[in-house]
């Protein structure tokens, strides 16, 4: 009898332990889908570096361990949809971070909306990503803001009266930036004819002399040429060879060491907007991020790593404030984010889930990116 009672107690205890253990030790799972292979791999890798760093800094919330699960989306829309679906169904994540590349993020949009899993994008700047989707948020500003910032800079700082635009017509962000630059530039100069030339090229093009000859004939004060760093650097080189010596302006994609190595002397003085600079830390969190990044990776941090870091920290902050790691609670918390201090600046999310935050303007000086100024949102 005694023995049976002992056995029963033992079983009971075991059940209790396992039950309590299951409730408390169950880690909070956060999924990450980024392009780790394929044409966007460089950007995806930088972002994941930032996320992993953030996880090392803070891997616990509400007394529970946090686990990040990284899946590769191969820079491919179909794979991106598969990857996100896998995170939700197989890994049962409560929130998702990703992805570098707006089209990849859009492929995940329908799935996270249907499964009601909150998702935070690091650097997808296409306005369509978060539109009509209550579960998609992002910690970066969007193309309309960036394009407007550069138009402001051109008119107010450089005193430009006319501008030419050369866009990469196959890249959504390039087309987006160009469009908003054009609108803002016309508005600021008050002259509907102030954009003297709009030329297009395709990703992978090597020769831009046709576009540049047109631009040269129109004699603009500045040239706005958002595009991939490789093509842009080549374009600027060829422009200098043709004797075009007006300033070149661009977007956040120029912030890559390759831009400097391909462009060499020619890209001196090129000015672009970006999310973050290692040179002028905007918040105390930036200082902290820069230092630990240097310690771990032995190099200067870039904007994509910083955005990945912010996306992770933002989710953890929301979980802590909500006191719950349920997807719905996280979503509601994200919708209310106001003045979150991140490495890339103070982040508030608007009604679309887009970050309202400052942009940084950098210039190439002596083969280095040099911080010029910070532009606050309107």
């Amino acid at each position: 009898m005694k023995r049976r009672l002992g056995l029963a107690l033992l079983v009971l205890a075991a059940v209790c332990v396992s039950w309590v253990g299951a409730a408390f030790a169950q880690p909070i799972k956060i999924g990450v889908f980024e392009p780790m292979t394929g044409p966007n791999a460089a950007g995806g890798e930088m972002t994941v570096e930032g996320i992993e760093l953030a996880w090392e800094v803070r891997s616990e919330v509400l007394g529970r361990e946090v686990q990040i699960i990284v899946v590769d989306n191969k820079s491919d829309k179909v794979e991106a949809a598969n990857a996100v679906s896998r995170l939700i169904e197989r890994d049962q994540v409560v929130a998702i971070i990703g992805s570098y590349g707006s089209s990849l993020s859009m492929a995940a949009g329908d799935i996270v909306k249907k499964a009601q899993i909150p998702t935070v994008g690091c650097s997808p700047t296409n306005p369509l990503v978060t539109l009509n989707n209550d579960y998609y948020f992002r910690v970066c500003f969007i193309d309309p803001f960036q394009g407007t910032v550069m138009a402001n800079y051109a008119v107010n700082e450089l005193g430009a009266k006319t501008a030419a635009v050369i866009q990469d017509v196959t890249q959504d962000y390039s087309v987006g930036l160009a469009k908003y630059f054009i609108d803002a530039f016309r508005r600021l100069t008050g002259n509907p004819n102030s954009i003297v030339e709009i030329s297009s090229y395709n990703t992978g093009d090597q020769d831009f002399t046709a576009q540049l000859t047109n631009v040269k004939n129109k004699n603009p004060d500045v040239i706005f040429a958002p595009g991939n760093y490789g093509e842009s650097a080549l374009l600027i080189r060829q422009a200098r060879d043709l004797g075009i010596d007006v300033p070149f302006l661009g977007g956040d994609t120029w912030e890559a060491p390759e831009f400097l190595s391909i462009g060499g002397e020619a890209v001196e003085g090129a000015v672009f907007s970006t999310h973050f600079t290692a040179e002028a830390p905007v918040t105390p969190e930036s200082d902290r991020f820069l230092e630990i990044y240097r310690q771990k990776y032995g190099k200067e941090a870039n904007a994509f790593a910083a955005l990945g870091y912010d996306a992770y920290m933002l989710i953890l902050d929301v979980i802590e404030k909500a006191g719950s790691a349920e997807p719905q609670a996280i979503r509601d918390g994200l919708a209310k984010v106001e003045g979150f201090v991140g490495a890339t600046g103070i982040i508030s999310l608007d009604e679309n889930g887009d970050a309202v935050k400052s942009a940084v303007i950098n210039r190439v000086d002596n083969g280095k990116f040099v911080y010029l100024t910070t532009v606050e949102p309107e």
Partner: protein
Amino acid sequence: MRDKQRTDLAALLALVCAVVALFLANKYLDDYKIRIINLSGIYVTLGLSMNLINGFTGLFSLGHAGFMAVGAYTVALLTMPISMKEMNFFFQPIVPWLANVEVGFLPALLAAGLISAFLGVLIGAPVLRLRDDYLAIATLGFAEIIRVVFTNTQSLTNGALGLKGIPNYTNIWWSWGVAFITVWFVTSLIRGSYGKAFMAIREDEVAAQAMGINLFKHKVMSFAFASFFAGVAGGLLASLLGTIDPNMFRITLTFNILLIVVLGGLSRITGTVISAVVVTVMMEALRFLDESINLGFIEIKGVPGMRMVVFSIILILVVIVRKAGLMTRLKGRESSYAEN
């Protein structure tokens, strides 16, 4: 003859098993697995339609991504709700004749197929006079042209920004229903006189012509049928993903399908079906290779892209093992060159 009966039986068995399996899958599996099953169905359709041109008719065509793009955009623009169109085209308004159109999935799919087929005829007419590598280059060029046109027609396709909010009509019954119809269609076509003519053209064009086969008519027909199904499959894919952009339809997409066709064996219907499913499932099943593996005492850090390496090795091995099937096909070509 006995061979044919055996493949008949195998195909029928596979069909019955597949329907039962699909029914069970739809009932018990989660969204992720159902998504993979959907994709497999779409790739079966794509693989078979490409096999019709490249395998049965012996025309080396690489234009599939282009036809898929046409189908995908047709379905997207026809099924998207009107409010969603307004939201997408915030840059430049959509062309007025498309702004207020919203039709059901079936008519949209049919339209996708028909428009693709029409383009297939349009492209096929001049291009199909070319042979082998020249045809490959011309069709490749066509696919690129489609992509470039879609990138630049902002008010029709929303350009590089892409479209989102395409209703998700695609489910297991749509994707596999179309796949089964394709299997049935291609099988009946190949068994009939048209199929015989296609294969005669593949084996020896001069002899086929001497036998009274209208080369041009049959080549264009094969091309049009294939582009019809490619267009429908593109539409299914668009509806499954809910978002498309021109960059999706690159040459790599065509190569993915070509890989399925070659792996399953040119002119092999069952082979194509099996390889389409295996390739799609494998790409996902091998994902564990990318992850860190925890053996309890030691943790092996995952290398992203590892699954691609393993996948490629498996591919190479399979192709080596299957060499016999491929070689017979190649021999046929060599002899026709020799006679020329």
